[in-house]
């Protein structure tokens, strides 16, 4: 057993840290640190910085313009990025669609779409969930019917994250209504500017319009936008979901969140002492930290297995479960740490308009909203109940 990172990985970490120090604009990291929303332009700005360095798509092979990093390197990059309060790399094009096109897409599709993901010309969003197809994703009802060289798409997608910024959407559509649930589904790329598409924002309980409903009314989609074979979409969808689960543990986010929580707890005074010295609070904080230390090692153990060529299976469900529990516990304790100032709910502060500063510590404005917004962690990407089912079935054979 040798739990230390290899000299190469340590050198890589130093290189990432130096890059972030040199190239991450303070105005972006400040917004990320205070959990303020980034604009579309700010997200694109950071993507461009990473792309210039060749680091935007760490998970892509070099032949497609990626960095070709190992799983360990990707983990190091994610962790250092979170610790430096760098904006996250949007997963939709890079982590989700890219690998699907590389494995199942045609040469034409790869040449057409992959460079545009890297250079920021396209902003992709995910058209998976529907009002009647959440945890039961295979029950999607949006239809695509062949008409000459086009499909005609009708139906509705929902929970489309940042769909308001997107110009393309990858969708699961039903192409064979007579087949068994999983067998009649296809994977279709749809131009969001096509006639017949309507995007309606859904405001979440933290007040942000982060997700959307997307309606399709007789939308014509060229058949060349079908990925792989017709009615084989479920295979591609599952492949995509396994990639969605890389970094599912969110160790970097949790580590950064814990550091932020400690800053708040040192600054807050309770009964004449820093809150972090309050025994009850300190115990809560310590329990989370101990959990995070163990979970980070579970994550590395699984990454090491992946590096040794083993495909991560249902173990990633345990990472999702524990990882989201820890992040939500950090959100809860941060809410607790800002005390009565968690009561304030100023929308302006979250957008970074500081002329109407809310009361309390600077982290207070975002603490409640982050707590509310991150309730999604245990719901999306396969709810934690679905993960428990996978663990019971796949790992225990129950």
């Amino acid at each position: 057993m040798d739990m230390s990172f290899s000299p190469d990985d340590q050198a890589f970490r130093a290189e990432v840290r130096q890059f972030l120090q040199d190239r991450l604009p303070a105005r972006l990291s400040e917004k990320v640190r205070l959990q303020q929303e980034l604009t579309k332009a700010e997200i694109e700005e950071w993507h461009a910085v990473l792309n210039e360095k060749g680091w935007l798509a760490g998970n892509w092979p070099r032949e497609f313009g990626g960095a070709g990093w190992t799983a360990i390197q990707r983990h190091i990059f994610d962790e250092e990025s979170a610790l430096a309060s760098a904006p996250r790399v949007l997963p939709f094009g890079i982590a989700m669609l890219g690998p699907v096109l590389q494995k199942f897409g045609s040469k034409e599709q790869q040449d057409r779409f992959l460079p545009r993901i890297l250079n920021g010309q396209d902003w992709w969003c995910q058209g998976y969930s529907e009002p009647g197809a959440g945890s039961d994703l295979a029950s999607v009802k949006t239809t695509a019917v062949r008409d000459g060289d086009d499909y005609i798409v009708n139906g509705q997608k929902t929970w489309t994250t940042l769909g308001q910024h997107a110009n393309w959407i990858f969708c699961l559509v039903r192409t064979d209504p007579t087949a068994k649930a999983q067998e009649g589904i296809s994977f279709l790329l749809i131009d969001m500017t096509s006639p017949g598409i309507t995007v309606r924002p859904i405001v979440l309980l933290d007040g942000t319009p982060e997700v959307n409903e997307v309606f399709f009314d007789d939308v014509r989609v060229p058949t060349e936008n079908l990925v792989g074979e017709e009615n084989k979409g479920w295979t591609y969808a599952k492949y995509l979901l396994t990639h969605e689960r890389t970094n599912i543990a969110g160790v970097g986010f949790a580590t950064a969140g814990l550091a932020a929580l400690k800053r708040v707890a040192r600054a807050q005074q309770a009964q004449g002492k820093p809150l972090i010295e309050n025994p009850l609070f300190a115990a809560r904080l310590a329990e989370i930290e101990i959990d995070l230390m163990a979970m980070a090692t579970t994550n590395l153990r699984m990454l090491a297995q992946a590096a040794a060529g083993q495909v991560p299976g249902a173990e990633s469900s345990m990472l999702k479960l524990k990882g989201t529990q820890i992040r939500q516990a950090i959100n809860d304790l941060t809410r607790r740490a800002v005390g009565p100032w968690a009561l304030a709910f100023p929308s302006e502060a979250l957008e970074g308009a500081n002329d109407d500063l809310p009361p309390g510590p600077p982290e207070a404005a975002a603490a409640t909203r982050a707590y509310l917004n991150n309730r999604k962690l245990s719901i999306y990407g396969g709810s934690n109940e679905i993960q428990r089912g996978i663990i019971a079935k796949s790992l225990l054979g129950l």
Partner: protein
Amino acid sequence: MDFGFTDEQTMLGESLARTLERGGDAAALSELGAGLALMTEEAGGFGGSGPDILMVFRTLGRAAAVTPLLDSVVLGAGILSAAGEADLAEAAASGEARIAVALEEPGQRYDGKVSTRAEGERLSGEKSLVPGAEDATHLIVRATDGLWLVEAGAEGLGLRGYALMDGGRAAEVTLMDTPARRIGDAALLDRPLAAAILAVCADALGAMEKAVQLTTDYLKTRKQFGRPIGSFQALQHRMADLLTEVEQARSAVWNLAGNLDTADRDRHVAATKSLLGRVALYVAEETIQLHGGIGMTEEYELAPLARRLLAADARFGDSDHHLERFIAASAA
């Protein structure tokens, strides 16, 4: 032994619920006498006991109603009445006057330390998180030497308002040589503050009951994998746990309502607020989770209930703060 309500209390609860269902505003609630039901007969009302407060606020919580009844009446009129300011207390209870109570100060968390001070008949200092300050006709300000009354628009009075999680508004308040009148010692706060904590807990209880009811209904109608998700045993057990915790919360609220005017009040305040804060968070988190995505949306009626439950924990000391107070009170 009787854990029930009087006929009058039950009737008031029912008509209050109907009024709220029709979208009744603060004026409609005043007309109904909701404010007077929160005041004792000596103070010109027709209620004011623990069970009266429980009935009114549990009903408000179920409807996620935003009203001035907590801050202006239970706390404001309660203090005024204790201070012998009968006319203003009655005006507040009937809705003619609006009282905002300025207790907290910046950086003080739940400690309640005060540095706002009086020189002659003038106050200077900063108060934080004052609910309803922008709409108030009068402010009650806690200063180092007791409680003071300040009129809205008084010289040197500054307000900086912002929205609150539960849908109301509060303000940061600055006082610079602001004319004020002393109305009594800080000890006058004891009973009104305990009553306000009961009100917050009863309100949270109502919100929990409603949230659990919504979730139960949703589990019966939402279908995935070809059947209602409520037929999955994993979710059934979660609902059973929820219901059991809400039952605990209900009894804790009853405990405080029944001991609001007994010698054991402080211990019950700490026990009830601690338990309610803990269960409120649990109910908010579980009811959102059991709904899935729809539970995250602003347009679904769970959203204001969940935020209300969070707010309940942060108001007047959170569950940890009251856990420590309970330990201290039990040791004494």
